[in-house]
């Protein structure tokens, strides 16, 4: 996926700027395809597991979405960092979904969600160690070989930091993207949440990332409980995250941006308004 000189990828790794999109959620299956429903929505992100090996209405909605929008796939269960063997059943189902949807790229999270044969159904952070880096690089290459699609990993929101970590998250991500030749799905809300929860500087984190590897951005709301911020994807994007989004775009240039809202899902009109705000910021940054 390198472009030009092998060590200096083009912006977004040469992948397109799809504009401003939202996630395809069950609550909007009807409204999205009603007159005016798609206004201002340039692309849809599909949660892969919601449509893998699923018939019935989900399959029909997916067909319709495919006919109306560019699609990208975003998973939560790849478990790229597990020490368990790669789940070929999962990868086969994901490859089949790719064949049905022809996504511009596929993404998942830098984490593990299963180990010892058990799926936790949650995203568990990895330590930022050389051993973990070697392991994830190898796994990413395996996924790329299996899917034959551009592949991105998302920076995780995490609530603990390991004493065993040997490098910063930004250093880990930079090395990972370069060695595995994958892209970065930068969740700007996760950057804010992590920096608040662990006392880091969000702008320094953004500055330390390889801007040309940022292929997509996520924006979301969170739940500030005072002593900790939980990444709920259940509220509006806050002003500080909008500011960090603008700061990021100044370094990356235009990047496909998605509003993620997974809990207490509002009307499509509310999502469109958030999407509109993201677009206005991107246009202001130029």
């Amino acid at each position, binding site marked *: 996926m390198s472009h030009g000189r092998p060590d200096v990828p083009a912006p977004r790794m040469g992948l397109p700027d799809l504009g401003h999109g939202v996630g395809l959620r069950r609550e909007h299956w009807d409204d999205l395809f009603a007159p005016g429903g798609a206004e201002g929505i340039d692309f849809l992100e599909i949660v892969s*597991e919601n449509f893998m*090996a*699923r018939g*019935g*209405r989900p399959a029909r909605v997916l067909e319709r979405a495919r006919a109306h929008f560019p699609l990208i796939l975003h998973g939560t269960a790849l478990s790229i960092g597990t020490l368990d063997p790669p789940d070929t059943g999962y990868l086969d189902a994901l490859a089949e979904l790719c064949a049905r949807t022809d996504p511009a790229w596929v993404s998942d999270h830098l984490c593990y969600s299963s180990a010892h044969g058990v799926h*936790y*159904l*949650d995203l568990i952070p990895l330590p930022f160690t050389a051993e973990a880096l070697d392991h994830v690089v190898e796994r990413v290459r395996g996924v790329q070989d299996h899917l034959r699609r551009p592949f991105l990993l998302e920076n995780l929101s995490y609530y603990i930091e390991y*004493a065993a970590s040997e490098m910063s998250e930004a250093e880990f991500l930079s090395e990972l993207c370069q060695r595995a030749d994958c892209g970065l799905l930068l969740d700007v809300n996760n950057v804010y949440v992590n920096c608040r*929860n662990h006392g880091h500087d969000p702008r320094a984190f953004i500055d330390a990332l390889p801007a040309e590897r940022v292929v997509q951005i996520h924006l979301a709301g969170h739940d500030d409980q005072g002593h900790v911020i939980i990444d709920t994807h259940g509220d509006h994007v806050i002003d500080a995250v909008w500011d960090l989004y603008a700061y990021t775009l100044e370094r990356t240039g235009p990047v496909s941006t998605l509003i993620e809202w997974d809990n207490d899902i509002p009307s499509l009109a509310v999502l469109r308004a958030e999407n509109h705000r993201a677009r206005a910021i991107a246009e202001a940054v130029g």
Partner: protein
Amino acid sequence: MKLAEIQATFHQALRGESTPEAAAAALGADPRRLAIYTRFARGHVASALESNLPVFRARASDDWPAIVDAYFAAHPPRHWALNHAAQAFPGFVQATVEATAGAPHGEGPARFGWTAFETCLAQAEWALYRALSDTAPRPGPQAPLGLNPTLVPMQFPYPVADVMLAHGRGEAPPRPAPAPSIVFFYQSPATGNGRYQKARPDLLFAVKAVDAGLDPAAAAAASGQPLAAVRAAYSAAADVGLIVGWSAG
């Protein structure tokens, strides 16, 4: 600390095999923060149960947290799909019923007071999820007369569909007396949504006749029923989506 040790330590905490405090100490992490993950892991399983077995959950009332705890401990999720975390629940209920038969009420799992009816209810609600997930191709407009390819009939020793229908009306009837019943689970050909349908005599007749490859005239001849009654049964079965490729006209 090696990655394997970290994952093993985290695993023990997530599965309730060690406390968040012990795991956090080993990992050099904040135990209150680590406990967020243990709550999430259990909460996702609870969520899968609640979304796929809403009638069972409603009837469990105050016992529900203890039921989730017992299930979570006994059946670690083995599949990446969230909904599949509920897959073992019917078997869990059945095993609990068998293990607690004759046990003093109020102790351990016997406190749930489950009978074979609760096993049926869990089986029925999970069957509905399986039906709505079925990947059988959607019958086209020119499909020949036949059964809905997603149709799964199930026999129960209790009128389980009546209880599910009552729940849909906002009612909470007591545990019913045993009475054999057949319930059809399937995807609606029109919408793709999961559906269930009590097997009324006319619907059961139509399903059996179509499954045998009989057109209405042949079904009427074989059963001795008037052709008009057979056609009405086929129409009723097609209206609710049990058979496809049927046009009353």
